[in-house]
């Protein structure tokens, strides 16, 4: 089996970058709020793995002092302690995001971000006392020429 190009470091780095890539892609592409939170969790996992890979070299040993192990051969324990903290903070972020999602569903009755965005714009426009533009993607028509309005009235009737 010829796997010279697939040494251990390449596999591990591709796992870290792949997880981050899938997480970012999921956040950008998906419309459902739960899927965005799943994407945040995946991104976090990839970032933790990438941070730990910076301490690892071939033939390193775990940073535990036993007889016969030279400390220079150990993996660096400082980033490991940071990742340990980051995992716990990640659970906190997750709990905050999930509770915000529950509040969004109570307020708007849906978790689809397109609908939530539409409802938010509606509320802002109602509060400001202006009419809502017809679509959030299309720019609002600011100037209406008389010819245009006549055509619209005819097509409307």
């Amino acid at each position, binding site marked *: 089996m010829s796997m010279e190009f697939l040494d251990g470091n390449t*596999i591990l780095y591709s796992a870290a970058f792949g997880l981050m890539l*899938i997480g970012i892609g999921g956040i950008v592409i998906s419309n459902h709020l*739960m899927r965005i939170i799943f994407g945040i969790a995946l991104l976090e996992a990839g970032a933790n*793995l990438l941070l730990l890979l910076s301490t690892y070299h071939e033939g*390193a040993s775990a940073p535990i002092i036993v007889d016969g192990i030279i400390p220079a051969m150990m993996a660096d324990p400082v980033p*490991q302690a940071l990742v340990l903290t980051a*995992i716990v903070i990640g*659970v906190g972020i*997750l709990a905050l995001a999930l509770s915000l999602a529950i509040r969004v569903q109570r307020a708007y009755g849906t978790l689809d971000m397109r609908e939530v965005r539409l409802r938010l714009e509606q509320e802002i426009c109602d509060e400001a006392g202006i009419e809502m533009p017809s679509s959030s993607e299309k720019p609002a028509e600011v100037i209406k020429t008389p010819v245009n309005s006549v055509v619209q009235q005819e097509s409307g009737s």
Partner: protein
Amino acid sequence: MEVVVLIVVIVMLLSAVAVMLFKDFLAALAAMTVVSLGLSFLFVVVRAPDVAMTEAAIGAGLSSLLFALALRRLGLWRSQ
């Protein structure tokens, strides 16, 4: 050893894609747990056994529990 790591990485990346593609949120949660457990195996491979213990207990256990409770509260706890 590298073959085992390669298999675990492939399973992890496939289930990470599955998290984003599954319509069923329970299945997506199960795939997310698979990603966390594979990640804790990779932490053992990069010589960080304490981080691996924490990831298996908190990343796979506690955060899955949080997701499950939130899914039940949101009414998405049903398999299709």
